[in-house]
């Protein structure tokens, strides 16, 4: 595969037709444009977040008070809210998404697989504000009673499940994010499973494996790298999600272990306060939050790249 593509590329550069050359340069231009947009975005964010970072220094990312009246800004509580809700969403969504993908690809009869598949893919197309309103009016009351009532009364010795039961809060934010990333993760997993050659499955079955063992050995293990990539992609979506989370998280920038407590994420504070920032320092602090969000997304994406690359090396390119 790789040898083939590189020789193809060399041929393309060596091509002497004028039309091809122009075409090549036009496409190259667009390629550079993507990099230019990325660089421009980064430069703008860096310049605008300058005043806040100068005033608070590196401790901006390690203090948690966010008070625009006293002009005291720290992003830790926002980073906390983002990470807790996103990882909660992953914990809930990953087993479900992989099961859905396995069922659709390996087990479901085609009369059921097709409409199910269509439904899962439709979930991606729903705008996030619709998820948010649904979360606020339908999901939050369900989370309040029975879920919080149950968790709060029977598991209240765990600090995650203590505190007031409003319905909205980090738990609700995590659940809505889970629902939103299930279609993302499951549709990529489905593609991954689909790409595993049928000969793998047949050879495992031929060795005398049961159906479940075949799924475990040929599909899940074979598709490991792709699954990890899908999960990280889901994480990326959860971290950047704005409107749906803003509607249900309670928008209170503070740090608490309890999942019942309201919190604030980096994306939601930007949506809430950027348009009506009280002072230029407030605006700059918000841009610094955007910078942090940018960096975290960058780290998540590079992580997914390296993990996939590593496992690819281990199990062979699929």
């Amino acid at each position: 595969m790789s040898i083939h593509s590189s020789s193809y590329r060399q041929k393309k550069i060596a091509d002497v037709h004028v039309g091809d050359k122009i075409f090549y340069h036009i496409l190259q231009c667009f390629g550079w444009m993507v990099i230019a947009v990325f660089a421009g975005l980064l430069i703008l964010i860096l310049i605008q977040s300058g005043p806040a970072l100068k005033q608070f220094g590196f401790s901006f990312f390690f203090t948690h008070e966010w008070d625009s009246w006293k002009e005291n800004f720290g992003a830790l509580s926002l980073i906390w809210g983002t990470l807790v809700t996103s990882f909660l969403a992953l914990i809930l969504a990953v087993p479900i998404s992989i099961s859905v993908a396995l069922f659709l690809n390996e087990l479901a009869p085609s009369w059921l697989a097709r409409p199910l598949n269509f439904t899962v893919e439709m979930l991606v197309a729903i705008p996030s504000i619709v998820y948010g309103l649904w979360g606020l009016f339908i999901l939050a009351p369900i989370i309040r009673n029975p879920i919080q009532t149950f968790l709060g009364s029977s598991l209240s010795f765990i600090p995650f499940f203590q505190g007031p039961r409003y319905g909205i809060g980090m738990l609700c934010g995590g659940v809505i994010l889970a629902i939103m990333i299930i279609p993302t993760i499951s549709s990529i997993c489905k593609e991954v499973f689909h790409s595993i050659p049928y000969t793998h499955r047949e050879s495992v079955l031929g060795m005398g494996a049961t159906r479940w063992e075949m799924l475990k050995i040929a599909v899940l293990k074979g598709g490991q790298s792709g699954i990890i990539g899908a999960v990280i992609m889901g994480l990326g979506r959860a971290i950047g999600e704005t409107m749906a989370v803003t509607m249900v998280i309670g928008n209170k920038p503070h740090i608490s272990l309890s999942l019942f407590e309201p919190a604030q994420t980096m994306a939601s504070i930007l949506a809430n306060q950027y348009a009506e920032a009280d002072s230029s320092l407030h605006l700059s602090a918000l841009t610094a939050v955007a910078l942090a969000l940018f960096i975290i997304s960058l780290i998540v994406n590079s992580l997914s790249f390296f993990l996939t690359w590593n496992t690819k090396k281990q199990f062979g390119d699929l």
Partner: protein
Amino acid sequence: MKFLKFLYLILLHFPASADSLLINGAGATFPYILYSKWFSEYSKINTSAKINYRSIGSGGGIRQLINGTLDFGASDIPMNAEEIKKSKHPIIHIPTTLSAVALTYNLPLLKNKPLLMTPEIIGQIFDGSIKKWNDPKMIALNKNLAELNQNIVVVYRADGSGTTAVFTEYLSKTYPNWKIGKGKSINWPVGIGGKGNEGVLGLVQKIEGSFAYVAMSYALSRNLPVTHIKNSAGFFIQPSIRSVQSAAQTSMKKNKSYLESIVNAKGKEDYPISSFTYLLIYKTMTQKTGQVIIDFLKWALKEGQNYSSQLYYVPLPKNVIKKAQVEIKKIQLK
């Protein structure tokens, strides 16, 4: 054939719309419904110009006006000293309508009996020192709360808004122990935040025992229960178009500018938490654009006021309109 005729008619229309002057404004979201009604009505009277308004928020309106990318701006709060200094061109404020803050709640037990509160109680609820509905201070005013052993769930606006600014301005003026500050977004010590009036109302409807502040026009148009607040003359007043207009009128009686805050007005019938919302106009404008804006402002302060109350906005009292008309005369055209 029919299609060609249609196309021809459209093409015929183009030169006309290209000739008409396009005026761009942006800013506050609170008066958006009233402004879009005004601009659509005004375009029927003056067909030569089209006024465009985008509700991007007061802060955004001010920033774009300072950068000179707008013909006029709009804000719920007068520009502060820092912003006035930044702007290259002098800017004047023209009040257009009044906004007020209503305190609403979800207490099925109360049924239709009014809920009475003093500024001190409101301040203590929002800073977290009163936690329960059956707090002795509350029972002293509302006897029927005695049996309500329920936590108060404070709901606030999470997005930066003029409503929060007016409400916190009121608390810092009337409740001496208010330490939390004032402004468009505040670090609230208790409660949960909703985005926009809709987000706040969504939470209030779902959580029993909740207590929240919303824009009055929002509360009135939806028939929400509203708290009667003790004003500085000692009367318990509920928010209404009349009580807010009266507050503006009494506040303007002395030689006061309409740029000053009108919270905690002194009159008997005055609702204490209200403020003006303004259009922000460059003091010097080009002949063409400027004339349209001046004509529009004159219309808005006269005929335009008739549209206010049907949309649950408060028409300006006469003394304020007079002051605004004097201000319009200061606009210079070049």
